[in-house]
C-alpha cells in the first residue's frame, strides 16, 4: 500500500449532474438488497430466522421452553443462551447476545427460531415459552435521574467545556434567555428494515463467514463480528451492494447481525436470512435519545452574546454507553467570551441508543437556534441581526480560523429568496383565511470530517477503461455515482470509462457512510490511487496494471476548523381552528464546499430538510416507562413526513471549492439538511401564532387555546 500526497482535482465531470449509475436497477426493482439475493450469489435454499424478544425490561430468563416451537411444522431449531455458539466478549454488550440469561432491556434478543419458511419461523417465535425472573427497572428519562457524567461524548469529545465566567456574565447581562428545550426519542426508520443473509463455508480448511448485510459500512461489520467469533478479518466477507437507507442506524452492526451469524453457524453451511421487522427495529437497531437542553444566553441589550451555557441531559442504555454530543455545536456556533457546556446521562434499562442523522447537531441546534430566536425577540431585533451580531472571527472552541465560514452569506441569500425584508417584525401579525402565517429562520452547521483508513485500487482494463475499487457503501446518497465522477476526473477519462466496484470487504477498506464523511473520505482515496496510478503507469498504461493507494495526511489542513454552514428558512401556517401546522415553504441555503453532483446533492439536501421537517412536526417515539419499550413502534403510530406534508421545498448552495479539505473541493452534505430545520419551523410557528413551543414535535394540540 502506498500513501500519495493528493493534488486538487482538475474537475470536468465533478460539478455536473449525472444521472445515478444504478438508477435503472432502482426504478425497476432489480437492485438486490440484503435478503434478496438468490442462487446466483451463493444463497441457496436459505433458512429463515426470527428473533424472540424479551418481554421484561430487566431480569433473567428463568426458563425457556422451545418444545411447542420445535413441534411447529417447518421449525428447524430454537437457539437460546443454553445452546448458542459461544462468542468472545469484546466489551460490547449490545452484540454479546445469547451468552447468558441476563436481560438488560425489553425487546432484547433471548432466542432465535430457524425455520424453512418465514411464516413458520414467525409462528415458532411466538410459540417459544419464556418466563423471567423480573428485576425492578428504570426506563424513564427525567431531570432528576440524568446525573451521570460520561467520560466523553460521541465520538470522543469532551463531556464538559468551560471558558470564562458564565455565572458572572449571566448575572451582569442586560438580557437573559433561560429556557429548557426538549427533543423526543426518534427512530431512524430507513425504509429498508435491517436485514442480513449469512452463511458459513469452508475455504481450504478455514472457516469463512459470508454475509449480505444492510449496512452503512461493510468493513465496520467485519471489525465488529470477527473478534466476536474469534476470526481473522479475512475470514469474514460482507457485501452490501444496495442498502435501503440507514440514517445512522446501519452505521454499526446491531444485535441482529450477530444473530444471523450465530444462527448460520448451526446450519452446516446452509444460508440463513434474517429480516428485522419494522416493530423490532424500535428495540434493536438504534435510535436518537431524547434530550433536555437547558440553555442560558446572556447578552447586551443589542443582542451581543456575553455568555452561552448549554447543559444537556439525555439517556444511555445500562448495557452499552452512547452519549449524544448534543451541546457540541454550541461550542463553535457563536461568539461569546463566557461559555459552558455539559452532558449528563441517565443510565436506563432500555435499548441501546445510537447514531441518527446529525447526532448532536440535530437536537442541539434545535435548542440553540430556538433560544437565539428568543434572544432576538427579547432584544427587539431581527433574527438575522442577532446572528450577524454574534458571528465569531475564529472557531470559539479551538481558536483556529475556520476554513471557510460563510454562514452570513447563506443567511443573506436565503433572506433575499424568502423575501425576509417584508416580514412583519412581531408575532401573530398575519392571517390568511383559516391560517396564522409566520416565517422563521435558523442556522445550520455540521463539521467536515474525513475518516482514516481508506484506500482505493485502480486497474487498467483491456478496453481502455479503468476498474476502480473501494469498499464503500451507497446507502442512497449517490456514492456510486459521485465516486464514478471523481474517478473519471482523477484519471482524466469519461465517467463511462470507469467500472466502479464498491460495497465488498474484499475491496480496499473504506470507512462508514456516516458523519457526512463518505465522499470526502472515499473520494480522496480514489484521487490518491488515481494520481499514484498515473504517476506509476502514465497516461497509456498496459492493460492489467494496478495501483492501490491511500491519501497522505495533509499537515497544512490541521490549522483550520472545518465546518459546513447553512441557513434554513421556513414558512409555517397554523390553523387557527384546529392547530394543525403546515409548512408551505422551506428553503435551505448551504455552504458545503464544491458540490460533486448537483442532481444527487440536491436530493441529499432536500432529503435532510424533509427529515428535519418531519422531526419538527411529527416524530416522537413514546417509551412507556412501565414496560420499558417504545409503544409507538410502527409507521402508523411513529409518523414520518408523508408526501402531502412536503410542499414547496428548495435547497441551494454557494459556489465554492474547499480544496484545503479535499482534492475534490467538497466537504460533505449528508447531515446538514436536518440541522436547524426543526428550529426554523418552530420559530416560524412562533412568528405565526405568538405561541413559543420549546419541545418537539410541533403537533396541533400545542397551538390550541
Amino acid at each position, binding site marked *: 500500500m502506498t500513501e500519495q500526497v493528493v493534488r486538487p482535482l482538475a474537475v470536468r465531470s465533478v460539478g455536473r449532474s449525472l444521472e*445515478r449509475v444504478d438508477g435503472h436497477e432502482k426504478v425497476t426493482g432489480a437492485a438486490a438488497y440484503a435478503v434478496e439475493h438468490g442462487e446466483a450469489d451463493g444463497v441457496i435454499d436459505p433458512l429463515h430466522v426470527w428473533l424472540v424478544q424479551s418481554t421484561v425490561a430487566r431480569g433473567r430468563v428463568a426458563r425457556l421452553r422451545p418444545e411447542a416451537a420445535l413441534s411447529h411444522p417447518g421449525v428447524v431449531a430454537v437457539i437460546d443462551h443454553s445452546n448458542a455458539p459461544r462468542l468472545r466478549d469484546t466489551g460490547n454488550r449490545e452484540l454479546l447476545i445469547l451468552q447468558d440469561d441476563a436481560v438488560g432491556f425489553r425487546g432484547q434478543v433471548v432466542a432465535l427460531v430457524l425455520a424453512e419458511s418465514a411464516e413458520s419461523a414467525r409462528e415458532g417465535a411466538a410459540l417459544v415459552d419464556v418466563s423471567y425472573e423480573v428485576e425492578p427497572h428504570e426506563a424513564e428519562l427525567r431531570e432528576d435521574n440524568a446525573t451521570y457524567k460520561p467520560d466523553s461524548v460521541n465520538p470522543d469529545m469532551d463531556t464538559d467545556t468551560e471558558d470564562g465566567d458564565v455565572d458572572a456574565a449571566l448575572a451582569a447581562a442586560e438580557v437573559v434567555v433561560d429556557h429548557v428545550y426538549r427533543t423526543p426519542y426518534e427512530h431512524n426508520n430507513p425504509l429498508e428494515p435491517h436485514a442480513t443473509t449469512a452463511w458459513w463455508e469452508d475455504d481450504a480448511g478455514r472457516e469463512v463467514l459470508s454475509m449480505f448485510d444492510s449496512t452503512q459500512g461493510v468493513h465496520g461489520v467485519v471489525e465488529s463480528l470477527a473478534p466476536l467469533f474469534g476470526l481473522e478479518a479475512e475470514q469474514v466477507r460482507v457485501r452490501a451492494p444496495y442498502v435501503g437507507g440507514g440514517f445512522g442506524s446501519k452505521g454499526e452492526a446491531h444485535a441482529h447481525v450477530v444473530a444471523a451469524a450465530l444462527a448460520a453457524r448451526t446450519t452446516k453451511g446452509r444460508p440463513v436470512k434474517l429480516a428485522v421487522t419494522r416493530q423490532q427495529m424500535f428495540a434493536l437497531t438504534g435510535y436518537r435519545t431524547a434530550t433536555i437542553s437547558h440553555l442560558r444566553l446572556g447578552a447586551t441589550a443589542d443582542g451581543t452574546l456575553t455568555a452561552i451555557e448549554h447543559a444537556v441531559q439525555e439517556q444511555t442504555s445500562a448495557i452499552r454507553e452512547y452519549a449524544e454530543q448534543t451541546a457540541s455545536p454550541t461550542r463553535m456556533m457563536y461568539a461569546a467570551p463566557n461559555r459552558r457546556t455539559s452532558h449528563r446521562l441517565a443510565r436506563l434499562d432500555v435499548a441501546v441508543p445510537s447514531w441518527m442523522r446529525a447526532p448532536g447537531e440535530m437536537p442541539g441546534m434545535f435548542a440553540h437556534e430556538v433560544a437565539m430566536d428568543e434572544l432576538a425577540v427579547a432584544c427587539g431585533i431581527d433574527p438575522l441581526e442577532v446572528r450577524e451580531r454574534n458571528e465569531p472571527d475564529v472557531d470559539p472552541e479551538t481558536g483556529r480560523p475556520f476554513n471557510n465560514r460563510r454562514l452570513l452569506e447563506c443567511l443573506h441569500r436565503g433572506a433575499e429568496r424568502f423575501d425576509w425584508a417584508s416580514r412583519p417584525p412581531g408575532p401573530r401579525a398575519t392571517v390568511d383565511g383559516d391560517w396564522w402565517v409566520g416565517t422563521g429562520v435558523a442556522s445550520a452547521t455540521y463539521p467536515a470530517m474525513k475518516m482514516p483508513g481508506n484506500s482505493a485500487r485502480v486497474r487498467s482494463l483491456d478496453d481502455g477503461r479503468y476498474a476502480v475499487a473501494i469498499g464503500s457503501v451507497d446507502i442512497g446518497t449517490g456514492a456510486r455515482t459521485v465516486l464514478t465522477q471523481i474517478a473519471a476526473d482523477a484519471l482524466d477519462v469519461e465517467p463511462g470509462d470507469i467500472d466502479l466496484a464498491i460495497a465488498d470487504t474484499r475491496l480496499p477498506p473504506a470507512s462508514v457512510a456516516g458523519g457526512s464523511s463518505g465522499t470526502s473520505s472515499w473520494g480522496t482515496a480514489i484521487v490518491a490511487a488515481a494520481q499514484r496510478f498515473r504517476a506509476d503507469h502514465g497516461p497509456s498504461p498496459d492493460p492489467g496494471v494496478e495501483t492501490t493507494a491511500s491519501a497522505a495526511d495533509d499537515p497544512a489542513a490541521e490549522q483550520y476548523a472545518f465546518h459546513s454552514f447553512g441557513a434554513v428558512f421556513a414558512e409555517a401556517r397554523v390553523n387557527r381552528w384546529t392547530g394543525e401546522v403546515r409548512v408551505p415553504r422551506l428553503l435551505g441555503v448551504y455552504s458545503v464546499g464544491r458540490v460533486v453532483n448537483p442532481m444527487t446533492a440536491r436530493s441529499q439536501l*432536500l432529503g435532510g430538510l424533509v427529515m428535519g421537517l418531519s422531526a419538527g412536526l411529527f416524530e416522537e417515539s413514546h417509551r412507556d416507562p412501565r414496560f420499558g419499550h417504545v409503544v409507538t413502534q410502527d409507521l402508523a403510530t411513529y409518523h414520518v413526513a408523508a408526501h402531502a406534508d412536503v410542499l414547496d421545498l428548495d435547497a441551494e448552495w454557494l459556489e465554492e471549492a474547499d480544496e484545503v479539505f479535499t482534492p475534490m473541493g467538497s466537504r460533505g452534505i449528508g447531515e446538514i439538511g436536518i440541522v436547524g430545520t426543526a428550529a426554523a419551523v418552530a420559530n416560524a410557528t412562533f412568528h405565526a401564532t405568538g405561541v413559543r413551543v420549546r419541545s418537539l414535535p410541533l403537533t396541533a394540540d400545542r397551538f390550541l387555546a
Partner: protein
Amino acid sequence: MDAHISLTVDGTERSLDVDTRTTLLDALRERLAVTSPKKGCDHGQCGSCTVLLDGRRHLTCLTLAVAHDGAEVVTAAGLADDGLHPVQQAFLDHDGYQCGYCTPGQVCSAVGMLDEAKQGHPSHVTDDLVGDVDLDDDEIRERMSGNLCRCGAYPGILAAIREAATA
C-alpha cells in the same frame, strides 16, 4: 396448510404452493424470487410493496396469496415490455429516489394513481367532488401519500409524476 394457486406475474404464468398464511408479498419474494416489491413495514403503512393487482394499485403485504388465485400481478419490473415505463424514466430524469427501496412501490403507485385520476376519482384535496379532476401538485402529493420515502425524495417524485401525467 398449503394451497395451490396460479398467478400471472409480469406477464408470466406462475403456479405455486403457498401456506395459507403466506402474503402475496412473501409469495412473490420468497417463493417466486420476484423481489421488485419491497417489504418496508409489512403492515400497510409504507407502500413499498405496492403492485398493480388486476390493474389497480394494491398492497401485497396485506393480501393473502391464497385469496388471489388467478390474479394478474404487475410489479415495477414488468411495467414495460421493453426498457422503462414513462413513469420510471421520469423518476430517473428528476432523481425521484435515493436509496431505491421505496421506489418500485412508488412507481407502481404512480401508475395506478394516474389511472385512477384519469377515471375521474376524487381525492381528499379535491375541492369540487362532482367536478373533473385537475391533477395539480397538491392532488399528486395527496394521492401519493400512501408511499413513504424516508430519504425524502418527494420533490423529485412529484416532478417525475407531474411530467409523466402531462406526457
